[in-house]
């Protein structure tokens, strides 16, 4: 046997173990085979342990130690069994002693370390506990997932709600992000709009005029009219600022602007509400109130003038009676005074009629007479401006139309004044005139004011009846006259039409004839 040479230092004067069992094969071979089997398995087990060890490099020092010790212990124990089997035919007892001794030492060490390690091992959760923990973890996970799902759904819902609110809001909401210059001073804003609806209502078709990386470049007027200064103030102080009303020339509308600082976004939030209708209503009612108070004042003035008028009248009569032999020249002077006095009486009578409550009612009115009286008021001033006054009244004095006298006079006054202003802008040298036509139709009367003044562009024809729209220079016209006149015409079931006819401008409206 090859072992013999390796283990040759053993004395071979001892008896091999086979002798102990008297070489009885039924005892010998089971022993030897068992020992060999043990050796093989005691070689395999450490191999498995080492394999395990190499794979689980995360074990702590003690664990590693135990496994190594255990592996060595089993390996050396296996070797003892091998030598035991060999020594059935040989007597390598020194080798056997050596190996057994080694095994004893290692096994004692393993036992010691093992005992020390048992408590720790006991603390490791049992498979049942592991299962329980894994189950709990799974439950927690599922629970967490569900909560996340719920939160996400909530968030989505909130976002959708916010978006629909923003979309429904009439306000425009913009975010102004400050831009600082080299010195760290606030000197510009970039503008981004959050909502579009108000923009569209104001007639802005694309977002670009509103959104801009530089307010200074796109809306320089904001730096002239104080808008930027207000924004800067809000940025500095954090106070809320309300600017109401603010007129935007770019959009030709009035806005209410609320500015506040949004610290989270490090920007300003600007809310624009379109208050144009409110302002128009305000202006209209102010204009109407003015007209009403003017009417009242006119009435009051009329009353006051009546007494002096009567005095002049009676003095004139007495004068005439006391000067029987008047020359032609003196007669003419007195006649002139008398006619002028009549003129004043007429004006005052008209003022009084207009100021009376019932004259704003719609009732059968003698249009021809009203027109005549009105023209008598304008006659003088038109003469002074060198404007010819023409009139074509094709309606007899008996015909009445349903109208409010006050409104009629106001509309005609407005139209005639506009005609006068248009003539002011006239450029050609043709003689200026204003023509008043009264035509009769089957069921209605048509009143028309014609002038050959400067006229207006066909393009703006649609807008001339809009409140606030005016072609006159700033300060000359409020833009309210025609819109008020149109309103008054509509109250009388009528509508003012305008037309350009060659070099002429025609404004006309119809009134229904009184059926009676």
């Amino acid at each position, binding site marked *: 046997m090859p072992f013999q040479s390796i283990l040759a230092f053993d004395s071979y004067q001892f008896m091999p173990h086979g002798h102990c069992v008297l070489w009885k094969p039924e005892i010998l071979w089971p022993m030897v085979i068992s020992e060999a089997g043990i050796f093989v398995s005691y070689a395999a087990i450490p191999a498995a342990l080492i394999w395990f060890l190499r794979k689980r490099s995360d074990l702590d020092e003690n664990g590693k130690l135990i496994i190594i010790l255990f592996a060595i212990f089993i390996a050396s124990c296996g070797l003892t069994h091998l030598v035991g089997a060999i020594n059935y035919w040989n007597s390598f007892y020194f080798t056997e002693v050596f190996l057994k001794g080694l095994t004893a030492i290692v096994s004692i060490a393993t036992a010691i370390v093992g005992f020390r390690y048992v408590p720790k091992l006991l603390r490791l959760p049992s498979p049942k506990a592991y299962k329980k923990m894994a189950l709990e973890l799974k439950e927690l996970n599922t629970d967490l997932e569900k909560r996340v799902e719920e939160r996400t759904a909530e968030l989505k819902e909130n976002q959708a709600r916010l978006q629909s609110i923003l979309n429904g809001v009439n306000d425009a909401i913009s975010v102004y992000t400050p831009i600082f210059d080299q010195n760290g001073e606030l000197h510009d804003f970039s503008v981004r709009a959050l909502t579009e609806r108000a923009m569209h209502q104001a007639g802005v078709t694309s977002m670009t005029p509103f959104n801009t990386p530089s307010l200074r470049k796109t809306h320089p007027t904001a730096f002239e009219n104080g808008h930027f200064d207000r924004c800067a103030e809000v940025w500095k102080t954090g106070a809320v600022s309300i600017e109401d009303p603010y007129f935007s020339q770019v959009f030709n509308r009035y806005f209410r602007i609320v500015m506040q600082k949004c610290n989270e976004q490090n920007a300003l939030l600007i809310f624009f509400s379109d208050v144009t209708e409110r302002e128009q209503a305000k202006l209209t009612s102010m204009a109407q109130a003015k007209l009403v108070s003017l009417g009242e004042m006119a*009435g009051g003035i009329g*009353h*006051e003038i009546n*007494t002096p008028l009567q005095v002049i009248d009676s*003095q004139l*009569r007495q004068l005439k009676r006391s000067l029987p032999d008047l020359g032609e020249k003196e007669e003419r002077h007195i006649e002139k005074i008398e006619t002028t006095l009549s003129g004043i009486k007429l004006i005052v009578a008209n003022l009084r009629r207009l100021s009376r409550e019932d004259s704003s009612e719609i009732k059968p009115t003698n249009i021809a007479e009203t027109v005549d009286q009105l023209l008598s008021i304008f006659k003088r001033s038109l003469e002074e401006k060198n404007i010819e006054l023409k009139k074509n009244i094709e309606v007899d004095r008996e015909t009445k139309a349903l109208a409010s006298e006050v409104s009629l006079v106001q509309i005609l006054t407005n139209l005639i004044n506009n005609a006068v202003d248009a003539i002011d802008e006239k450029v050609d040298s043709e003689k200026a005139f204003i023509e008043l036509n009264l035509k009769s139709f089957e069921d209605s009367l048509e009143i028309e004011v014609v002038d050959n003044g400067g006229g207006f562009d066909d393009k703006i024809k649609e807008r001339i009846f809009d409140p606030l729209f005016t072609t006159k220079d700033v300060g000359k016209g409020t833009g309210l006259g025609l819109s008020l006149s149109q309103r008054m015409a509509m109250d009388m079931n009528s509508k003012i039409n305008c037309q350009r006819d060659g070099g002429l401008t025609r404004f006309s409206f119809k009134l229904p004839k009184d059926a009676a």
Partner: protein
Amino acid sequence: MTILFVDDVVDILEGYEAEVKYHFSDFKVLLATNGQQALEICKKEHVDLIFSDAKMPVMSGVEFFENLKKMNHEAPRYLITGHIGDYSPERIKACGASRVFDKPINFDKLIDFMKIQTEFQIEKGA
């Protein structure tokens, strides 16, 4: 015939007086500058016809007429005024003003009116 004119503006009264004196030389003209004065005159003297302004200090024309009504004063009375808006039509009717003339009055029409009144009164046997 005695006619009473009431108005707080003296020039107006002068005007009435001049017209009546010129057209009816035999008429007597009495003048008052407020309703109170006029009322005193009416209590003391016989008056056939009264023309009064409405708005006057101390006592207005309407109040004056109301007092005349209380007295059962018979003379026809008329208001000549520029300030009719201050009084309701009902009150004006109730105070016995048969008619309201607007200022500035048409003197020719006033004279004609007075002529008719005179004839009427003569017929009545006043």
